[in-house]
């Protein structure tokens, strides 16, 4: 008998939620018709900024799932200064991320020393075929358009080192 007040209270909670939903609307949204904006810094898809990539392979090696595939070759670029030696640059032949394997840990984004990888909040990229979840470098570069501006630094934070 001592449990009766608690039982009645439980019934009150569900009935209260029933009337709240009926009068004020549900806590959920009807997804395909209306969409919530994902929170800032949400992890949707990883975008690649190709010009920054030096194919150093750090992301690929630090990936716990081994889902990043990189192939590159070396080329000679014209020297920066008149009369200098030609520079050696690495050019990407292949940069694939297999989203069927990716577990969205974000280690690749963290580890990249040249700011070539970014989180994008875009999340609608499911595919009917699992093979299509392998995004190649052109597709990864297209995601760059969806990457938001980096939020402003907090007051008193260290300046970004160049």
């Amino acid at each position, binding site marked *: 008998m001592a449990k009766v007040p608690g039982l009645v209270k439980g019934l009150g909670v*569900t009935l209260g939620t029933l009337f709240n939903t009926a009068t004020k609307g549900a806590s959920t949204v009807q997804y395909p018709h209306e969409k919530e904006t994902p929170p800032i810094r949400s992890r949707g898809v990883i975008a690649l900024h190709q010009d920054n990539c030096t194919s150093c392979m750090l992301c690929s090696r630090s990936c716990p799932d081994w889902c990043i595939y990189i192939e590159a070759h070396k080329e000679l670029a014209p020297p920066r200064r008149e009369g200098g030696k030609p520079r050696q640059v690495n050019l990407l032949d292949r940069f694939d991320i297999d989203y069927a394997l990716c577990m969205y840990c974000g280690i690749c984004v963290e580890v990249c020393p040249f700011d070539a990888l970014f989180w994008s909040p875009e999340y609608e990229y499911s595919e009917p075929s699992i093979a299509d979840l392998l995004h190649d470098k052109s597709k990864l570069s297209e995601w760059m358009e969806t990457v938001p501006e980096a939020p402003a630094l907090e007051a008193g934070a260290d300046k970004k080192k160049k």
Partner: protein
Amino acid sequence: MNPLLAEIPYWGQSLLRVLGGLVAVLLPAGTIVYVFLFKMMSFMQSRLGPMEAGPYGSMQLFAEVGKWLQKEDIVPERADVRIFKMAPVIVLLSTFLLVVAVPFGPDAWFTDFEVGVFYALAVSSVSVLGILVAGWASANKYSLLGGLRAAGQLIAYELPMVLAVMGVVIQAGTMNLQKIVVAQNSGSMFGFDAMGHPYVISQFVGFVIFMIAIQAELTQAPFDMPIAESELVSGYMTEYSGFRFLIFFIGEFATAGVFAMIAAVLFLGGWGVPFAWFGWTSIDDIDNWMNIAGPIIVLTKMMLLVFIIMWIRFSYPRLREDQLQRFAWKGLIPLALANIMVTSILKVAF
């Protein structure tokens, strides 16, 4: 012989009865699933439930039925095939047998049993057989455990249910459900007859015991150990798929509706309105329109009672198996026996 059907040839009567039975079972089941399972549960969880199929998701049930009908009918390799296939039908059969006993109006009834209460309580136990053989024939340990739990639970809660109904029978002085309805609506409380005398007031203890017992009979939470999806993977329904699962599903909610109708007949005055409103004194005075209004009144009272059943279902977590048994044997049955004692003493005294 039902006077409404007296002019119609026998085959026509049978056809009408079958159609009436189908409507009386499937219409409440569909309404309950949509209104309570789809919408009320969603609203209680602060979401909208199905919204895409038809206006406000009202055609969702047809989509679900279509989905189930086109699924493969899988039978486990080592199952007892004939019994496995028979089990859902037995469960649904008990629902159809049960609805036969419910009176829907002064002349709108399927059968007018003199011992309607006894019949209803007897056939409601047939579903236990269906559940038990479903659990056994599936050749699956989860199913077997679920079936055994169901049998233990249904037997434990059959008793308080029967004992709770006995109070009503003592008070009405009859086991005929039709006469119980008439007794409630033509009765009076303290000389005040504008409300009739619904037994939910004088038999309130019996009503509460009956509602708890049908909650357990229907294996609705918090008494859903036989189907416990998190520990027994839906118990006796584990191996069922496609339309056999559909039959179990219809059986569950149709039985909820029919049990609620029987509770409405026993405790809320069934199809009747208080006879004093229209100056009726006995069942022979009642105007013919009550045969149309009666079913609507029964269905309204049924929806009210199913609301309570579902409200409790959506609010409480599952009990433990031993708590369930202790609650029935140590709580409800002594209480129901005391209720019978008090009722019969008062019946003799007044």
